[in-house]
């Protein structure tokens, strides 16, 4: 019974190997598509493709491990199967998986450097696909190793090492482990509650690695702390700031359209106003209210202004802020065009009379060139206005 089962799984294994060969590139194409096609594929589609890939890979994973499991339980049968053709098939499958795996990671790498973060979930799925792919590759190489080991079971350790070629010899020399069959030779006379100890040599790769890290440490301290005199962080910071400043200046010079408070014009087209509203909703509502009615900060919809109500003045207030009164400068967070947009949006709020307005603060703003009326705040709120000068010191 067991033998029959094994023959079935043996047949199944060939089928799976074939399907891996066939499906591997297909799968990779799908992944490439999913990663690169931001424009024509919806997030939901991409996510479902990636989930589908995950499911496929999980099934594959279980199939391959199932084959390994069932074949290792009957060595005799496995041996008869271990023909050169089978070895070749496993090798081809492994190579194909490796090749098809590469673009996925190249894609991932490109994304990482460009910091494209359209969907965290999608990126995560992509990575999980990659991890599963690695697991499959690992299992396939195990399978291949199994073919080699079981078919070479009659040979001695030395012959095996010879068979493995230069790579096998390097591995053998780097580990310097006494084979399990010969371990009596290095068994110490220690015995603790039945626990014995072998005395294998330190693995040469391990010793080498240890020496290399020690050398790295000496070089690192010698170079950075002694030769360069330390203070690495501060030096790095100064270099970073300098480079950033230069890059920014170069960019702005190339752009050639720098907007500032001396030349800013009011924007009236609907798209600019809409962008301005987005910026306002994202940054200003906490203090000035959802409709500009004011809150911690002053009302932006009435005709009273503390720091001037013209486009140039509003732009300037946004740009430099009024730090003493709690209005932060936005020049580090918004670009000049963005500040122009949000200032233009604020200009559209004038006279909208939203509910729950904050009391007027400052003076009536009169645009230059129009007739000056020198109008004070309404009589009934005069007291409030005077108080509010001080109040605004913290309010804004």
């Amino acid at each position: 019974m067991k033998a029959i089962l094994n023959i079935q799984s043996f047949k199944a294994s060939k089928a799976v190997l074939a399907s891996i060969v066939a499906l591997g590139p297909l799968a990779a194409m799908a992944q490439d598509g999913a990663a690169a096609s931001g424009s024509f594929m919806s997030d939901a589609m991409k996510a479902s493709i990636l989930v589908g890939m995950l499911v496929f890979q999980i099934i594959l994973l279980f199939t391959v491990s199932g084959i390994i499991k069932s074949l290792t339980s009957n060595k005799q049968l496995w041996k008869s199967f271990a023909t050169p053709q089978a070895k070749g098939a496993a090798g081809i499958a492994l190579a194909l998986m490796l090749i098809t795996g590469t673009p996925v990671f190249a894609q991932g790498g490109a994304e990482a450097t460009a910091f494209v973060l359209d969907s965290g979930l999608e990126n995560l799925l992509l990575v999980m696909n990659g991890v599963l792919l690695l697991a499959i590759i690992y299992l396939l190489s195990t399978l291949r190793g199994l073919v080699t080991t079981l078919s070479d079971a009659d040979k001695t350790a030395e012959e095996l090492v010879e068979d493995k070629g230069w790579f096998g010899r390097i591995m053998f020399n780097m580990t310097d482990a006494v084979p399990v069959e010969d371990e009596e030779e290095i068994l110490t006379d220690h015995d603790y509650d039945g626990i014995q100890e072998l005395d294998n040599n330190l693995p040469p790769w391990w010793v080498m690695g240890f020496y290399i890290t020690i050398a790295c440490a000496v070089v690192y301290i010698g170079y950075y702390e002694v030769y360069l005199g330390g203070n690495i962080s501060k030096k790095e910071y100064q270099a970073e700031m300098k480079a950033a400043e230069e890059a920014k200046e170069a960019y702005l010079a190339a752009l050639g359209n720098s907007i500032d408070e001396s030349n800013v014009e009011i924007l009236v087209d609907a798209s600019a106003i809409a962008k301005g509203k987005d910026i306002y909703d994202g940054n200003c509502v906490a203090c000035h209210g959802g409709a500009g009615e004011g809150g911690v900060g002053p009302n932006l919809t009435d005709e009273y202004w503390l720091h001037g109500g013209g486009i140039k003045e509003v732009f300037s207030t946004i740009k430099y802020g009024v730090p003493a009164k709690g209005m932060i400068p936005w020049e580090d967070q918004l670009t000049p065009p963005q500040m122009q947009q949000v200032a233009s949006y604020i200009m559209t709020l004038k006279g909208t009379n939203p509910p729950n307005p904050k009391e007027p603060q400052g003076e009536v703003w009169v645009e230059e060139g129009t007739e000056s009326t020198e109008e004070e705040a309404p009589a009934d709120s005069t007291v409030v206005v005077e108080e509010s000068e001080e109040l605004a010191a913290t309010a804004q």
Partner: protein
Amino acid sequence: MAENQLENSVQGQDSGAEKVEQIKQKVEGKPTANLEHFEYDNAIVRNFALASIIFGVVGMLVGLIVALQFVFPELNFGIPYTTFGRIRPLHTNAVIFAFVGNSIFAGVYYSLPRLLKTPMASKFLSNVNFWGWQLVILAAAITLPLGITSSKEYAELEWPIDIGIALVWVAFGVNMFMTIMKRRERHLYVAIWFYIATFLTVAMLHIVNNIELPISLTKSYSWYAGVQDALIQWWYGHNAVAFFLTTPVLGMMYYFVPKAANRPVYSYRLSIIHFWALIFIYIWAGPHHLLYTALPDWAQSLGTVFSVMLIFPSWGGMINGLLTLRGAWDRVRENPILKFFVVAITSYGMATFEGPMLSTKNLNAIAHYTDWIPAHVHVGALGWNGFMAFGMFYWMFPKIFNTKLYSMKMANVHFWLGTLGILFWALPMYWAGWTQASMWKQFTDEGMLAYPNFLETVTQLAPMYKMRAVGGLLYFSGMILAFVNLFATASQGSLIKKEAASAPAMAKTYRKHKGEHWHRWIERKPVPFFIWSLIAVLIGGAIEIIPTFMVKSNVPTIASVKPYTPLELEGRDLYIREGCNNCHSQMIRPFRSEVVRYGDYSKAGEFVYDHPFLWGSKRTGPDLHRLGGKYPNAWHYRHMLDPELTSPGSIMPPYPWLLENDLDASQISDKINAMRTLGVPYAEGYEEEAINDLNKQAEEIAADLKEQGYEVMSNKEIVALIAYLQRLGTDIKGEQAAEMAQN
């Protein structure tokens, strides 16, 4: 030679090796007149094991709640005792000290007597160890939700509990050494080397890091300030991982893995080299938690290079563990116990490779303060500590209860749930960390931050936080299975309370035999062994810590930095009570992205009056070091009432009780006096005036809030907290401008 080997081999029934057979024959040929009979105490092992399993369920449940709070902030439940800032330390303390701690004691109390062929020396001390440790855990479970904390990570417990821990730990150590002295086995096995190093280093770390000046039974201030406090804390914090979560577990690995696999340890000489290298190098690596901070540059560099040198000593343990399974791999496939061990040791190898990589400045600049670090930690905690404990319990329970494991199948399911849980926990968090760092650092071509609003970088992570919670749930389900399986095993069997054993007495004299390894000498001399390991762990700490305290140039003073006002001091204590430092750092690193986002980078001299330091280690929320003056008082008032009022989408819990609670300023003169004792230059007699200054400043803030439309009594806690937050980072604004001009 012969005599000693003969003694050793009496219990060597597991081995099939010829050599041992020969020795056995010799033993049997000898008269058994000097064979002594004694009993191992399994009751204490069972107690620790059951405690570990119960607290494992509790600690992981709290962990699951904490993880879900990132997704559903409502799970902070709107009461002080269950907010993230308070129960995150509860989770870490529960899993580290209650779950892993008890599992370590179970492992030591099982393996140590058997390796020494003698029962534990004092049943009384064993019980002091057990009940004392549970009492400490109980005290932690009560005080942490109450906000009684010293704020130092993994050392949050207040001073009376710290003293309790020290006493229990000493009881454990004395018991261990008395047992070693009464041994019938001449040489100490490698597991015991690790137990010795654990005992003495944890004692040293715990005592030095917790030197505090008590104000009351529930409040104290760290003896150290700012940079120095940070160095001591992370010398402790890092080596708590090294000597509480690593060395004792390596000791357990050296006992339980060869036992469960019935294979000889791979390499004796590797265990010698990796043991000494590990304990010597580990202690230096603490400063890698403080890269790019205000810690002196040379100390940071030492932290980096010693971390890199730590890879191979750590991997020595991994190699010796994994290669011990050579020739047993066929059994690994079928035996869940060995599977747990294999994944545990592999996780150890991965975490100890990743750790040194994260200690390089390039990677640290990306990963620090992000979710990458919790991911790294949980690979170690869930993989290494958790799986070692599970493997050990599944192996040990049938032995001490004289039965079979209740269900092998259940253990297998547990293994897969746990493994998937680790993957689902760690992978999303690696991705989250990378995403977070990328968004923090991204600039536009105009030289602006691409994501100037910190909140964007938080909401972006929501899907990753959800997946992490799923991972936590998987791992927790496995823990429940372990609970059921192990309790069922215990109840179907019956505890062998006293396990009979026998071994010949140790001969009075020992004759060194030819060709003996030189290291055998110290293995039979516990006292020199203790002294040499003490020297090994003292050197690194001393070289890093002493100059940071003694050499003034390491912490350059800044004239404009002044002590906190009494109200700010009270506000700071509220900040500590609420555990704000669990989500907010106070350390701006010298990066363009941080200086543009937060303000000028933090200087060592700014923290000289910070007892304790509050630099934090994770930015779930933004850095707060230069928060002072950034927003109006009313903004803070609204933000504490409900963070979503000022920051829609925020996952920070609301703190409405701060608006309602009266500030308890009754200890302000004691606090001023204590600070003066610690070197903060308050004038003589200021403790008498402090309360007046406190009230005056509180009234100013309350008046300001009133003007903004928020009626609040000046004696409410919120006023003190606002005072502290508005002070943060403001001392050097003038000097900052001067320095910028200079650059």
